[in-house]
């Protein structure tokens, strides 16, 4: 080989092809295979995503009728009698509201405490790793945990008590409380990242003006991470909307919104209901309903909601990058 070496003149690519890059024609077979694999995998993923969206869109347009959205579900023997899914849509909205209202203070104050105080540091590490654990816990386990908690006698006011004295443990409050755990990790992560991205000199300037730490948080830090919190809320909402296991176990899966007791709002919160996800699940062949047309229609609405939220996350991220002049790192999720 050394005899051949002088023949390679400097400044000339020794591989074939005049281009700046070497052409794959001269590569080893393994490399060519990997190159083909990378193209196939990348394009393939996009094709799968597009296929899912287009297929659901096609089915949705085929089966979705306005009266499905605006009529309440009913018990019936044939598909034409079982009504639409107004109640599941309202259930989704209510559940999301409860979950986010509970999750935002929890996540934001955890992030604030960890980033701004965080003393003692071992305690901060415990909090951070417990949020990691919550993030890694399957929703089905969180649902069972919620059932165990809300069936305690202590929490009887949050659901209804059966005639035998057993606490039912399934209600909007129970499901919403567990949903807040689902929304907590993304909310916490976005808020923490936002706080960490606020430059130190902003805090120092506030301290120099005689502000206390908490005043700095309220007047300087919270306003500057507002868009991060908004991103987190959107991510949390899309996780709550898409979750099925908690709804199936903790919302009682009643067809309509069933209030418990006579109090107008409290009764609704104590009552049972269903959401779009559990409606899809129940009407698929896996559930008892076996009404695929309605499952497709509800799934289409669900997917449209999730895609809108996706766009919203994009929008917030872009306007934030525009406002701060910072490019977010290649964040895909």
């Amino acid at each position: 080989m050394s005899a051949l070496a002088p023949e390679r003149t400097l400044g000339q690519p020794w591989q074939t092809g005049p281009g700046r890059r070497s052409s794959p024609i001269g590569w080893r077979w393994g490399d060519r295979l990997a190159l083909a694999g990378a193209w196939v995998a990348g394009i393939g993923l996009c094709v799968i995503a597009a296929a899912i969206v287009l297929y659901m869109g096609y089915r949705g347009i085929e089966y979705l009728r306005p009266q499905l959205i605006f009529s309440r579900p009913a018990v019936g023997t044939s598909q034409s009698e079982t009504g639409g899914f107004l109640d599941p849509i309202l259930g989704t909205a209510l559940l999301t509201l409860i979950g986010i209202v509970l999750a935002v203070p929890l996540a934001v104050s955890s992030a604030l405490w960890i980033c701004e105080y965080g003393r003692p540091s071992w305690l901060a590490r415990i909090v951070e790793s417990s949020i990691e654990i919550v993030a890694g816990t399957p929703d089905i386990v969180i649902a069972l945990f919620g059932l165990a908690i809300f069936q305690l006698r202590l929490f009887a006011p949050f659901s209804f008590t059966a005639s035998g004295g057993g606490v039912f443990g399934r209600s909007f409050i129970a499901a919403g409380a567990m949903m807040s755990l689902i929304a907590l990790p993304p909310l916490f992560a976005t808020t923490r990242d936002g706080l960490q991205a606020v430059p130190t000199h902003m805090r120092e300037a506030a301290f120099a003006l005689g502000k206390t730490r908490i005043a700095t948080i309220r007047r300087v830090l919270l306003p500057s991470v507002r868009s991060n919190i908004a991103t987190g809320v959107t991510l949390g909402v899309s996780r709550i909307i898409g979750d099925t296991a908690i709804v199936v176990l903790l919302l009682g899966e009643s067809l309509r919104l069933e209030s418990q007791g006579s109090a107008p709002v409290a009764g609704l919160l104590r009552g049972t209901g269903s959401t779009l996800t559990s409606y899809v699940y129940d009407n698929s062949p896996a559930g008892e309903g076996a009404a695929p047309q309605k499952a497709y229609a509800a799934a289409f609405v669900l997917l449209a909601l999730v895609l809108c939220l996706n766009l919203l996350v994009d929008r917030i991220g872009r306007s934030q990058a525009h406002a701060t002049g910072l490019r977010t790192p290649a964040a895909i999720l």
Partner: protein
Amino acid sequence: MLRRLRSPWSERRAELTLGAVALSVGAVVVAMLVFVAVHAWPILEHNGISWLGGAGNLEAQIATMQATGRGAPASAYKLDAWPFIYGTLLTAAAAVVLALFVSVLSSIFIVELAPSRVRRIAIPVIRVLASVPSVIYGLIGVLVLVPFVGNHLITGAQKASVQNVVELTGAGLLVAVVILTVMITPIMVALICEAFVSVPNSWREGAIALGLNPLRAMLSVTVRAARPAIVAAVVLATARALGEAVMISMVSGSRTFVPKPIDGAIFVFEPLRTLASAIIDFHEGIGAPALSSTLYALALVLLFSAAVLSVAGYLIKLPLRRYQVRG
């Protein structure tokens, strides 16, 4: 009350309040462990550690639990949950291995190969894949993929050969693994892409200057440097795959069955149940104390493995933080 909130907080009160709220998250995790363990205790007490084994007939045991109801005798608490654990390990391992290849290759595609116009489309499109709810994956699986596999991939002879043991409808291991792979790949792609981008460009350029072709440079320098991120992605994806309940319950045939590799090609079509899908499948019988305790025991296994994986992921991500990669 509101006035007191509005008035300036003292430093100490603010720190204590925020700290207390933050600590309540830790308390929730502890409560979760305690509650699930307490509810699982009757099963653990009755079976010892042997309930993880596969000696008995699981389907019959669960039927007994459902049948005996409230006043379940001690004998109803017998449980051998190995088929569920095996199903979980099988689906999760297969999906993670598949997703590892797909995600590393497609991350190379996104970061290195794709023209910038394609890249600008590919990133949001893959993000869509990550945000599709699992019930929609399940719906597509049960209404599109399962009939397709049942009608076109499984031959009549294959169905006939096992008709006395199990009915092959198409719902089973293959569909579950394929959809699970699609579900976890975007998570891994996100983490791996971020790590690829954060590897200094000069490293790869140096390798190209030494005569490697761009792809080989990518494989031997960038992928190698991003190994911790790849491991972290695998850990995260495993956690997701282990806990997937609704989708698996919809497409895996919902039969307590152990797919055996000995069966040859039929193996991939055989139905199964995982820990999480068993909880969904049997949740209506949770009034029966024996069954309820069983479900909590299954949840305890999931919770334990999720906690282990979280801690592992946290430890793996620690060195990554030095390179400013946030996971």
